[in-house]
């Protein structure tokens, strides 16, 4: 059986479905650590971490350099050993400058004393979660939500753990390669999650374009009746939490609620792997698999890099640009964020860096909706993007909510399908902002 949801799109061409052919057969290459790493204190959703090192300090690899002062927050660890040379605002993927800890690599890769295997079985559940927290583990699927909170709030509510191996975003192949090359990490991580959350079911959802990984995974989970592999139809955004849950369990996460309310907790492949590694080796999150691809990249690759490596180094590693790029993206082409500089560092949630030089974007000057309704059919949340746009533009916020803006997951399916090239998602973001501002003002009154 192949699982899927209603709505969504099929990006890509006939010859190259999902635009993944450039890297999906390329093994992960470990990249040399850079001379300098830049570690922003905000690599996750929530409060920023606060630095606990100062300029001049010598740090070890895996050593915590910024602690988490708030519950929804994750600490930051040094990804190389060396000397702290600056604690100052540096350019961040979100376009603004964010306080960052800059470490000069001494190329010794001295491990910090805290990096050693931990005995999972001997720990209480609280200790396990705390261990995950101090490991700085956040969602590797892109949302970078601190994993310990997800686990904590899921205990008792959740009956199913789902591993998100959909990787439905075009171009990206980092999870695919990971599943092919190190499936054990994910499976072991899943087993730990099943134990921590105390559930009876652990599902692994992987899209069919990664079917070459199925055999090995089936082998690894054989004999454990709680675990099951669920092949998923290739369809964007199959990997979006709500759609994935719907596909593999048939449940719908109620509007405005969390997956836990549907009894599910979803973890990215590499998140599960990170959890496993945190116990098996004691290593916090300091590495990341990044797919570097796109029409402008000379030699697209899957790279294993240190968190904090500047993008420029990744491009260097991939042979530079074929042609001057007209678009730089952190993340996939559907959800990724446009960049204008290569100084930004790889962060915990960075699964890809893309550079385009062709006409991928296909913008037009004065787009005009022709009411084709394709956006409606594409929307995986079954919303009415065309009317969200109309009412959003007219700033009729109440009606905009009625037709669904607040339920929009910003997946971009509608914008992708729109033949008139209406900047739908951008309008929705704007409208959402206006609604939030309005509500805040109302609350103040």
């Amino acid at each position, binding site marked *: 059986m192949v699982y899927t949801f209603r709505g969504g799109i099929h990006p890509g061409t006939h010859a190259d479905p999902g635009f993944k052919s450039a890297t999906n057969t390329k093994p992960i290459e470990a990249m040399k650590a850079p001379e300098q790493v830049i570690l922003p204190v905000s690599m996750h959703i929530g409060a920023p971490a606060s630095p606990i090192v100062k300029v001049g300090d010598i740090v070890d690899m895996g050593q915590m350099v910024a602690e988490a002062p708030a519950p929804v927050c994750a600490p930051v660890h040094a990804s190389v050993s060396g000397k702290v040379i600056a604690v100052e605002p540096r350019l961040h993927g*979100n*376009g*603004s*400058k964010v306080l960052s800890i800059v470490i000069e690599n001494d190329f010794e890769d001295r491990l910090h004393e805290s990096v050693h295997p931990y005995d999972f079985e001997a720990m209480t559940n609280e200790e396990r979660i705390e261990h995950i927290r101090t490991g700085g583990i956040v969602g590797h699927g892109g949302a970078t939500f601190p994993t310990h909170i997800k686990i904590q709030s899921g205990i008792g509510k959740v009956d199913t753990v789902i591993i998100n191996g959909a990787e439905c975003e075009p171009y990206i192949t980092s999870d695919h390669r990971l599943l092919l090359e190190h499936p054990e990490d994910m499976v072991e991580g899943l087993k730990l999650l099943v134990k921590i959350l105390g559930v009876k079911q652990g599902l692994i959802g992987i899209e069919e374009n990664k079917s070459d990984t199925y055999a090995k995974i089936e082998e690894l989970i054989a004999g454990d009746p709680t675990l099951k592999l669920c092949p998923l139809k290739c369809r964007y955004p199959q990997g979006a939490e709500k759609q994935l849950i719907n596909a593999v369990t048939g449940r719908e996460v109620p509007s405005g609620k969390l997956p836990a309310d549907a009894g599910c907790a979803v973890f990215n492949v590499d998140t599960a792997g990170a959890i496993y590694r945190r116990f098996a080796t004691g290593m916090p999150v300091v590495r990341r698999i990044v797919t570097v691809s796109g029409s402008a990249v000379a030699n697209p690759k899957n790279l294993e890099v240190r968190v904090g490596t500047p993008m420029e180094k990744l491009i260097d590693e991939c042979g530079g640009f074929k042609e001057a790029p007209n678009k730089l993206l952190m993340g996939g082409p559907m959800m990724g*964020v*446009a*960049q*204008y*500089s290569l100084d930004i560092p790889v962060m915990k949630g960075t699964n890809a860096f893309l550079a385009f030089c062709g006409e991928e974007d296909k*913008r037009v000057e004065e787009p005009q909706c022709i009411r084709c309704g394709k956006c409606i059919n594409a929307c995986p949340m079954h919303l009415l993007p065309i009317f969200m746009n109309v009412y959003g533009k007219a700033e009729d916020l109440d009606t905009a909510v009625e037709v669904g803006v607040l339920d929009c997951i910003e997946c971009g399916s509608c914008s992708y399908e729109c033949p008139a090239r209406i*900047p739908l998602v*951008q*309008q929705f*973001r*704007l409208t959402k*902002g*206006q609604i939030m501002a309005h509500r805040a003002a109302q609350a103040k009154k």
Partner: protein
Amino acid sequence: MDMQNVIFAVVVLFVMGVLFAVLLGIAAKVFAVEVDERVPLVRECLPGANCGGCGYPGCDGLAAAIVAGDAPVNGCPVGGAPVAAKVAEVMGVEAGETERKVAHVYCNGGCNAVDKAKYEGLQDCTAAMRVAGGPKECAYGCMGLGSCVKACAFDALHIVNGRALVDAEKCVACGKCVATCPKKLIDLVAAAKQVHVNCKNRDKGAAAMKVCTNACIACGMCERTCKFDAIHVVNGVAVIDYDKCTNCKMCTKVCPKDCIEPIATAEQKEKFKAMQKAQAEKAKAAAEAKTAEAQSANET
């Protein structure tokens, strides 16, 4: 002539007329509903732009609120003093003093501010802000995409040379633009105030200089020139204390970055410099004279 028919006509219509008059007369008494007569009267005084600048749902809403005592008689920012006076007459109270205000955009960058990358998409400042923080290198300045222009119902805002500019004649100080600008660059100030620092860049001088040729570099020249203690560098940018500013425009003539309005021409600056110099010399001379005097006094 058929007189009977005419008489019928007269009788029928007369009876009808009388009947209806009685009916309506009685009905008016029986079904009388108390309405505060002042509501429509106040409503008449209001300009009827229904802009919502007062914070009530349109002019009708404000009228009702004024009569109910929830809003002051000068609650309409659009109408200003004349309307307030009229409303006050209806309400029988004195209008408070309303000083005419206008919106002002505190950025002078526009085409002189450096673009970090070409931005494409929704021509809206807030939307652009969310894409890589906006198209300009300056994180504080006007993006010139005109969200405020769209918000203004009075055609008082326009993008001029890449940045928003208020037409003080047309502006009625409704405050819509103030709330709209994502960079918080717009404020309402008394129309009488003429000197403004058109920059909000808090970066250090060198950094500011890199992103915009018109940025305030916090050199402090203005602060030193002002005789009224009305301009200060706060958080890396000069700010005018409007309570103290007397519109003397001295600071405008010393700003090396031309970011104080009204921008002085090179000629004016020259003149001012010359004058300053002359004054300084004079003062020096005076001081010297004084010391000399004192000395001589001492001597004597």
